[in-house]
């Protein structure tokens, strides 16, 4: 027992294989983690990268094939019960019962955690109020909207105010409003001293919430650091241009290359052009438009965005995201340059 109360989650060499038929997949292939108490760690990666498998091992739902993991100093295999008492889990793999009402779901969990009679009822009412679900409490969960559904899932994992919370893709499929609500909830939890491990496919989400980010691919952590460290490795962002005249794209690419110093990429759309913006401070993205203007190239659309997970991936692995990943190619260009 290495007494290290500073670390809420500590994993070394976690491995987990899955066998289906003759095929064995290394879902998690040697992951090390150390997450300080009171911090938010974002595990970023595409579908099938192993994020959920890591979380399920840490939440004692899955035994590691090799390696060790401790949550608040408790081994996830040998002291699974102590781990379960300390963690909350939300995700596609830890859900509430759709046939029951919101109140019934929370009441059941409150009783399972040891609240009795009126105390259980009080706890449920507090949670419903806190998550804006008081009015919906009497309805079956299957009638809930996506955002409400995610809030009841979160409420369900907070019945006992866990000190460590695992959120597996907490905002996937949510509209921006509901997503912001989930983010606000996470921030409150962290203020209260909880440690959060969240998995996400969205760089922006990790950026917004996480103190440290680990990028996972094929079951391995391929990069780790703070958001700004990670972004440094891929550049500050990217510009996307849309030209009025497709025949002048090559010329425009030459100009962009000269101004930014990075090789532009030419998407299949013949009018489109994108380029990474280096962060060495010598090349200014603001010079791109005037330079193109001088050459008489019309640019009806121009946007600047954070590097997408795609670009992080491309830079870190030298290959694009696997084709079969849906959702992972969230619009990289979110902030229109209207300022």
């Amino acid at each position, binding site marked *: 027992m290495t007494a290290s109360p500073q670390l809420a989650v500590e994993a070394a060499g976690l491995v987990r294989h899955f066998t289906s038929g003759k095929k064995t997949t290394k879902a998690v292939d040697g992951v090390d983690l150390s997450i300080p108490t009171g911090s938010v760690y974002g595990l970023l990666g595409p579908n099938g990268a192993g994020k959920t498998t890591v979380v399920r091992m840490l939440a004692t739902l899955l035994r590691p094939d090799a390696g060790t993991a401790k949550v608040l100093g408790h081994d996830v295999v040998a002291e699974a019960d102590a781990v*379960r008492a300390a963690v909350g889990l939300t995700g596609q793999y830890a859900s509430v019962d759709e046939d029951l009402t919101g109140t019934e779901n929370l009441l059941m969990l409150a009783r399972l955690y040891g609240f009795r009679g009126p105390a259980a009822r009080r706890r449920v009412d507090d949670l419903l109020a806190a998550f804006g679900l008081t009015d919906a409490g009497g309805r079956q969960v299957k009638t809930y909207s996506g955002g409400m559904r995610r809030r009841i899932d979160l409420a369900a994992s907070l019945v006992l105010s866990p000190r460590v919370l695992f959120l597996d893709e907490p905002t996937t499929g949510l509209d921006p409003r509901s997503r912001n609500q989930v983010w606000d909830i996470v921030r409150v939890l962290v203020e209260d001293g909880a440690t959060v491990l969240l998995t996400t496919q969205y760089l922006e989400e990790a950026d917004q919430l996480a103190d440290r980010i680990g990028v996972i691919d094929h079951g391995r952590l391929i990069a780790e650091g703070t958001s700004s460290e990670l972004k440094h490795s891929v550049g500050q962002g990217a510009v996307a241009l849309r030209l009025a005249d497709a025949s002048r794209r090559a010329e425009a690419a030459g100009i962009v290359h000269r101004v930014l110093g990075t090789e532009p990429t030419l998407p299949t759309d013949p009018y489109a052009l994108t380029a990474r913006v280096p962060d060495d401070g010598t090349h200014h993205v603001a010079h791109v438009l005037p330079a193109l203007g001088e050459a008489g190239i019309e640019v009806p659309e121009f946007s600047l965005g954070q590097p997408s997970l795609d670009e992080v991936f491309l830079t870190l692995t030298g290959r694009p995201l696997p084709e079969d990943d849906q959702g992972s190619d969230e619009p990289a260009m979110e902030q229109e340059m209207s300022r």
Partner: protein
Amino acid sequence: MTATELSTTTLREAVALEERPARPSAVSTSLTFGWRALLKIKHVPEQLFDVLVSPVIFTLMFTYLFGGALAGSTDAYIQFLLPGILVQTIIIVTVYTGYTLNTDITKGVFDRFRSLPIWRPAPIVGALLGDQVRYTIASIMCIGLGLLIGFRPAGGVLGVVAGVALLLVFAFALSWIFTILGLLLRTPNAVMGVSMMVLMPLTFASNIFVDPSTMPSGLQAFVDVNPVSHLVTAIRGLMAGVPVTGDIVTVLVSAVVMTAIFAPITMYLYRNRR
């Protein structure tokens, strides 16, 4: 959609929980899961009616179509058939145990339970307890129908209650087979399909519908060892007021054996499910 603005203050208060209750006992945890099973009957009553349709049809069809030919009169046949139909009905209802468990797994509810600091078998034990209520309701409806069309058990209320009680014991033991299927198979419908394949021979190759003495000897041998036949004979005896000790003991022993074999397998699969 009303704009639900979350209040950070309420949220903060809800999160900052000062008292932590003591861990509940195994019994209270199992009862909570039993309560959940009852809520499911309340919210999804169809699950009960679905399984009652076929016994109703069987009872009416066999009684009025074949009853006279098989037993001389429909009235005489219903006395013979009803305990058997009751057994068949409840045995088919037990499949829902596996079906429900598998639905929980596919929906992710199951992992929520497994992530809780509770007595591990509680979700399954609780579900089985809740199922007892389901079996009881199904039994009452089945016997009610029988009484309407002329079932007059000589054993009286006591005999009927004893018969149902024996049936519940057997159903509890049998359910463990379906919890195994529920944990092993991929989809709820697969559980349904495979379970029915197991149950069809068990219920039809038995003495539920007819006296097996006219069956070919090979089939008769199977019918004789089929625990369902012993269960039917035992319940017929109890309800008719002439208990057959041998069959009652056989049923109880097979219930103990089934539980002793299948419950540990279920728990092993439950703990090590990936």
